[in-house]
């Protein structure tokens, strides 16, 4: 679809990951997209293209054991392990300041990265994710977290069941090809990674107060987009993000579920592009 993104591989964190990029490739400030579970660099193609067209450097990559990327031996499938991977990828890419765009589990991962690099966080876009004070896991996560049950569940999940379960929880279904790509990537490796990651995260809201205390005083420009009918992370958390990001521009999309960039792509793209225009950052290089 988008000719505006370039795809290549990136060596980072001891593995080879897929990179989707757009815009000026040598800028030290970039829009960095971090996907959730299950997700991959492919989630971000449209938005990365839009950010690139807006004159920004945009990068999205698979997290280890997601998409088509294999985790190196000894990789820690924990939010901290993934945050470390993000740090290594950004270093490899020469990115010093980032506007993070986070979705789902990309939220905790990106926010942990931000805790370690608060000065490098130039702006943040939270899509159905963020600080989750008091949040307790959704049913599916609880299944994944239960030993044996999680393994059985992952073993018996097939394409039809996956498609059905996913769409059942979405207010108006997701585009067929989006779901198919997600399932294509949901291989044995990813399924194992999901179990490890969720089992390493007993309290998804646990760090919230620390994050709020650290981030709120920094007045980081923020855009929050949340699907009103998110069945996994309730939309009531959308306005909670203002505690960590005072002055955040919060949009609860009335007809969206957990993947607004898939079921309301035009709206999400418009909001992202407008946000990037507002937060300034490096001026686009003059042409020629």
């Amino acid at each position, binding site marked *: 679809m988008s000719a505006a993104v370039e795809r290549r591989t990136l060596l980072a964190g001891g593995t080879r990951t897929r990179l989707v990029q757009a815009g000026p490739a040598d800028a030290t400030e970039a829009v960095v997209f971090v996907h959730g579970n299950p997700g991959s660099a492919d989630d971000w193609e449209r938005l990365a293209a839009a950010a690139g067209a807006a004159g920004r450097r945009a990068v999205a990559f698979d997290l280890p054991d997601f998409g088509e990327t294999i985790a190196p031996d000894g990789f820690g499938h924990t939010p901290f392990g993934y945050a470390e991977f993000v740090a290594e990828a950004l270093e490899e890419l020469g990115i010093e300041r980032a506007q993070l765009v986070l979705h789902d589990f990309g939220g905790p991962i990106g926010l942990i990265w931000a805790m370690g690099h608060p000065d490098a966080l130039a702006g943040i876009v939270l899509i159905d994710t963020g600080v989750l004070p008091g949040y307790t896991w959704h049913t599916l996560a609880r299944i994944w977290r239960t030993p044996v049950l999680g393994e059985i569940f992952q073993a018996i999940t097939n394409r039809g069941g996956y498609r059905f379960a996913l769409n059942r929880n979405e*207010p*108006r279904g997701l585009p067929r090809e989006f779901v198919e790509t997600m399932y294509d990537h949901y291989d044995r490796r990813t399924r194992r990674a999901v179990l490890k990651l969720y089992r390493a995260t007993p309290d998804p809201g646990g760090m919230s107060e620390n994050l709020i205390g650290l981030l709120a005083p920094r007045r980081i420009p923020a855009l929050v987009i949340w699907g*009103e009918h998110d069945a996994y992370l309730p939309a*009531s958390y959308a*306005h909670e993000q203002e505690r960590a990001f005072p002055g955040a521009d*919060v*949009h*609860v*999309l*009335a*007809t969206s579920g957990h993947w607004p960039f898939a079921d*309301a792509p035009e*709206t999400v793209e418009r*909001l992202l592009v407008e946000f990037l225009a507002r937060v300034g950052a490096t001026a686009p290089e003059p042409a020629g």
Partner: protein
Amino acid sequence: MPTTDSSYDAVIVGASLAGCATAIQLGRAGHRVALVEKQPDPQAFKRTCSHFIQASGVPAIERLGLLEPIEAAGGQRPRVHAWSQWGWVEAPPEQAARGINLRREVLDPMVRSTAAATPGVDLMLGWSAERLLCENGSFAGVAVRNPDGKERELRARLTVGADGRDSRIAELSEVPVKTSPNARFAYGAYFEGAAPAHAPDASVWFLDPQWAAAFPTDTDLTFYAAMPTKERLPEFKRDPEGALVKFLADVPEAPPIREGRRVGPVLGKVDMTNRMRRPTAPGLALVGDAATAADPLFGVGCGWAFQSAEWLSDAVLPALAGEQPLDKGLDRYRRRHAKGLRGHTFFMHEYSKGRRFNPMERMMFAAAARDDKAATILDSYATRQIGPARMFPRALTRAISVNARHALAR
């Protein structure tokens, strides 16, 4: 000291749409009517209103001779395009019912001056109803008071409460009332500038369960309305304009609200409790919102004001002419009112709970988005031309066949 200086055939409290329409009808039939309005300003108008008049109200307006002046004043004759997750529900242009969009700022003074100019109608501005007068176990007029404290007793054979949703006359007469909660609230404002895609037609969005609308109106203005469920209230209270603009701009196939410029205040209504009152008591009738204050989401208030006024005057004219007892006429009005509105309000108020579509509604909307005939049936119902008893059998059979064909074609 109250003075009884006048005796009328009818005294009507409230000179907004329903009251004026009733006064015009009764006055034209040769009766003496006192039309009492607590607002002293003849240009007063109802502010918290989407001003949309459903097609069901148009014949009554035409009969009053007001349709031409409304169109001459720039009133639009829109059909309604309804967005659903299955697509736009649009009856074909030649089948679609057309309502009216004219700002209340223009409409109310027009209707009021027509009433004031009707022979036999005494328009009394700046008087408010204090108490009801009784005679032989029947209501027989009202005592009214002006801001100077002057009180007058207006005696009449028929007393009419046309004083809106929070009707004082209804309260004083103690007619039984049924209320049901409304889980939504409303905010809206007029904007000038870029017109929405279907202009001059109206667009509404059934966001399931949220709701939004764009009503293009006279002088190239558009009234934008949001009716979200109450979880969204804090953001609207904090920044009414910002929240309204954001809400409309984020809907699918959004109208160009951000390219427009707001004209006039942002209006909000938080309590939209549905009220249905028994529309009659001995010697007394309620019209418009005083009788039935239905969920504003469906835009029926203005149309039903004109319709109930018509039903009342048609029903009581023989009695006022001395051909039959008044009770009989009032009884006829009550039955006509119930026949016209009860089925509609039942389903409207059920939807006021802020719930999502039920399977039957999903079926009907999906079919209507796919098929002209299904859309026409839903359009006739939504514009209140047909009631649920006629709509459901037709819409459901059509929905089953349309959706089955759709599933097979995939």
